[in-house]
């Protein structure tokens, strides 16, 4: 193998698994260290710059970082990254003086954002901060989009939403509430310099089986029903409720129904328990609230008595996989199952819908009804129209919408300044030694052996009575510190200087996870099998040095390095050093590097 170039922009970034997995590339270990140090405001601002909604995401993020966390590969569970984010949001001081000050002199470019959800608000924040005039249009009475309408208040209180949307709006965003945009043509005619579409995936998928129309009064589409609950239009449910679907919306539906009078609430899913789209922790929360999840059942018919829903008939199925791994659900042949109920909530998926975009306005759509976009720039076939969030590539999650918002803001800025959109500004990276003394590092390298801390919650009986009462209390500073200590500091990179190495084997001997091997060089496949501990995780890179004096090379398997720095402590020549890798995504307004 060729010597690894750790200067390549992605190499060390990939070692920081959580940050790499985060769509917005939040510098996770950095804010966790600041949280442990009690510097909550600083930790909050790191989050705020990169993911815009730390308090919100600290409660409801899909947490792609946690399954990626290296701790999960050497310990039972990953670090509670998401809930540590909430800690810095909960415990911070007033941070308003730390927010950017938009320039007094505006640049006279006017941008329209359609929808006031996470993607639009991110675009607005990024652009207002550098002098753009941004107007946001939304049909609702308040900002937040699906974060406000679809996420139940017991998971995300309005106060948090108001605070974090407020930080953005108060930068000087021109908000237009209760403004239903019904024509893109009209919007374009208003002469905006650019238009950003962040209207989400607002249509819940239908379950068209017999009885749907007849019993319609007792059957609701999940996301619409959640919005009605959220805004107080729906205040109670029937006693016996069936929720169809296995995603996070289904979990929100069943848990909301449980708090609104539903005594016998159950979730019925076509797929098996493991394949359900809902996050494991959301399933766990539902089960903990006494909601059974029934799997491998496909709805056949809504049974009703003259329009009064009486139950749902299900067919039992089993999963079968073909050679390509595609699943089909085949009937088991067992008798159908009739479940009695008084109300059904359908949460089997969401779809995009752009009824307000005229199909002859020049904007291309693909066969799935999604806009044709350049995935790198989020620009549509109309050069001044950009998309982001669920509206761009179908339903994803909030953190992806935020990441889209950042990219779209960069594109819009470059578009308005007539720059090449495909040439993107580079991220800011930095690599600095953390050595302070012979055995002293500027980070806590003593690896905690504690297990993941549970987030304290309020008494379930109490929270089941009040849909607005937030269930989780959040970590207190002591729990937060103990949990933060579990972080392995993967951004403190092990950097090897081959010229300084005397091949004394000290690093090999001390490494607690046997990551380091000195051996003859060869091709990657062969090398992976010959290491002191075979490197079986192909997603994780091998760090290969240049040829050493004995003709061998140093090979380090990045997979389960604990970043404890013991190799560097035991190295007599400083060939190993622990250096902090800081990676910050580019922000709108930054220049692209010269060719």
């Amino acid at each position, binding site marked *: 193998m060729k010597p690894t170039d750790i200067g390549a922009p992605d190499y060390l970034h990939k070692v920081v698994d959580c940050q790499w997995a985060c769509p917005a590339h939040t510098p996770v270990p950095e804010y966790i260290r600041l949280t442990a140090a009690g510097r909550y405001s600083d930790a909050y601002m790191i989050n705020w710059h990169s993911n815009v909604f730390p308090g919100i995401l600290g409660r409801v993020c899909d947490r792609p970082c946690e399954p990626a966390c290296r701790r999960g*590969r*050497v*310990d039972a569970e990953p670090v509670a990254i998401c809930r540590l984010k909430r800690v810095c949001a909960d415990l911070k001081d007033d941070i308003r003086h730390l927010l950017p000050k938009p320039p007094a002199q505006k640049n006279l470019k006017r941008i329209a954002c359609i929808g006031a959800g996470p993607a639009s608000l991110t675009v607005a924040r990024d652009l207002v901060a550098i002098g753009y005039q941004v107007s946001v249009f939304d049909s609702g009475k308040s900002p937040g989009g699906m974060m406000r309408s679809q996420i139940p208040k017991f998971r995300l209180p309005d106060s948090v939403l108001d605070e974090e949307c407020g930080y953005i709006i108060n930068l000087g965003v021109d908000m237009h509430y209760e403004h239903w945009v019904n024509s893109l043509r009209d919007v374009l005619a208003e002469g905006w310099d650019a238009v950003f579409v962040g209207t989400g995936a607002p249509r819940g998928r239908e379950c068209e089986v017999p009885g749907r129309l007849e019993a319609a009064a007792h059957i609701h589409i999940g996301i619409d029903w959640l919005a009605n609950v959220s805004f107080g239009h729906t205040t109670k449910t029937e006693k016996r409720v069936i929720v169809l679907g296995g995603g996070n919306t289904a979990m929100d539906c069943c848990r909301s129904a449980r708090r609104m009078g539903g005594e016998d609430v159950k979730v019925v899913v076509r797929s098996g328990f493991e394949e359900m789209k809902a996050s494991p922790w959301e399933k766990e929360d539902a089960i903990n609230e006494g909601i059974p999840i029934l799997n491998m059942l496909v709805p056949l018919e809504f049974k009703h008595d003259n329009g009064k829903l009486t139950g749902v008939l299900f067919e039992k199925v089993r999963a079968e996989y073909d050679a390509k791994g595609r699943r089909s659900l085949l009937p088991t042949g067992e008798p159908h199952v009739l479940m009695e109920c008084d109300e059904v909530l359908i949460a089997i998926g969401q779809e995009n819908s752009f009824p307000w975009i005229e199909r002859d306005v020049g904007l291309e759509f693909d066969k799935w009804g999604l806009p044709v976009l350049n995935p790198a720039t989020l620009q549509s076939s109309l050069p001044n129209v950009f998309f982001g969030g669920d509206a761009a590539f179908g339903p994803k999650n909030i953190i992806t919408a935020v990441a889209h918002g950042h990219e779209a803001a960069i594109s819009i800025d470059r578009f308005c300044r007539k720059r090449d959109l495909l040439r993107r500004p580079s991220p800011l990276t930095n690599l600095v030694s953390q050595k302070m003394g012979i*055995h*002293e*590092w500027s980070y*806590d*390298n*003593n*690896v905690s*052996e504690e297990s993941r801390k549970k987030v304290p919650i309020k008494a379930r009986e109490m929270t089941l009575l009040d849909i607005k009462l937030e269930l989780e209390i959040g970590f207190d500073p002591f729990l937060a510190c103990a949990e933060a200590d579990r972080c392995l500091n993967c951004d403190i990179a092990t950097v090897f200087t081959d010229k300084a190495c*005397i*091949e*004394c*084997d*000290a690093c*090999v*001997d*001390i490494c*607690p*996870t*046997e990551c380091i091997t000195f051996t003859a060089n060869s091709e990657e496949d062969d090398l992976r099998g010959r290491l002191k*501990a*075979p490197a*079986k995780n192909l997603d994780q890179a091998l760090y290969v040095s240049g040829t050493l*004096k*004995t003709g061998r090379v140093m090979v380090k398997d990045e*997979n*389960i390095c*604990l970043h*404890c720095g*013991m190799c560097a*402590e*035991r*190295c*007599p*020549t400083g060939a190993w050093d622990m250096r902090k890798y800081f990676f910050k995504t580019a922000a709108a307004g930054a220049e692209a590097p010269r060719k």
Partner: protein
Amino acid sequence: MTYFAKPKLLRPDTPKNALGYTRRDYEGAISSLCAGCGHDSISAAVVQACFDLDIQPHRVAKLSGIGCSSKTPDYFLGNSHGFNTTHGRMPSVLTGAALANRDLIYLGVSGDGDSASIGIGQFAHAMRRGVDMTYLVENNGVYGLTKGQFSATADKGSKNKRGVVNTDSPIDLVALALQLGATYVARSFSGDKEQLIPLIKGALRHRGPAFIDVISPCVTFNNHAGSTKSYDYVREHNDAVNRLDFILPRDQIEASYAPGELRRVVQHDGSILLLRKVKTDYDPSDRVGAMNHLQERHALGEIVTGLLFVDSASESMHRHLNTVEKPLNQLHDAYLCPGNHALAALNASLR
């Protein structure tokens, strides 16, 4: 953070031996030696050897004298018996322990100062008595604890860190061990674990005195140009006579060798030493030949390593002294005091 314990987190696929222990279970406290010390590599080799041999930690007694080398038993086999004796006196304390309990595996750890200077008499007698032990010398050619004076194994003409030339003749402990009757004699290098680990395994399973001289560079005081015990010098002048594969009786011999390439030695416990030829035709069963070869190569400035001599029909001190097989702590009162009739019978036999 200074000298914290090694994190206990393990990789999920950490191998376990037949006893269900991981390699980490054979480690000891965290080393307080200088970073890069060859001794730490030797400790790691002992750990690996004991792990591979499925040794029950409580069946090992590790004894040492004084010095950097003699601190190392604290850094491996944390669950074994240990005795840190006075300077140079490890061999006699170990001899006593071995006489009292022959069921344990005895590992003596010493250094060039501990064995070639103050303890040379002890070393000599342990070898000639045939004590059943593994005698490891961690040989760096300097007194590291007292800031790098030449030790008795430093080569004549080699330079210390300040450039002063050594004028005294060196003691070669391997040559002494051969002459004094050790039945398993090897030399190795801390920077070559592929060679060292099998040598330690063979020694631990050898009956009789097994001596291994391990050249172990002192990174702080003896790893400069002009030293003959530096990483660079040893790598350049390492003249291995053979490569050893250690095979337990239960294991299949998987590697295939060309005929004539291999010498096979079966030890008393059935374990097999497979010696691969490296360069010359070297006969490790020939004690005199080994001594000659050692002298010849030494005159050329080469460092002979590998398994230099092994006597597969070796005997130990217990046989010579006709000692009791049971450990003394298991001999009950009735056995130790057989009573009046036994005394009467003995007296009668002498009349």
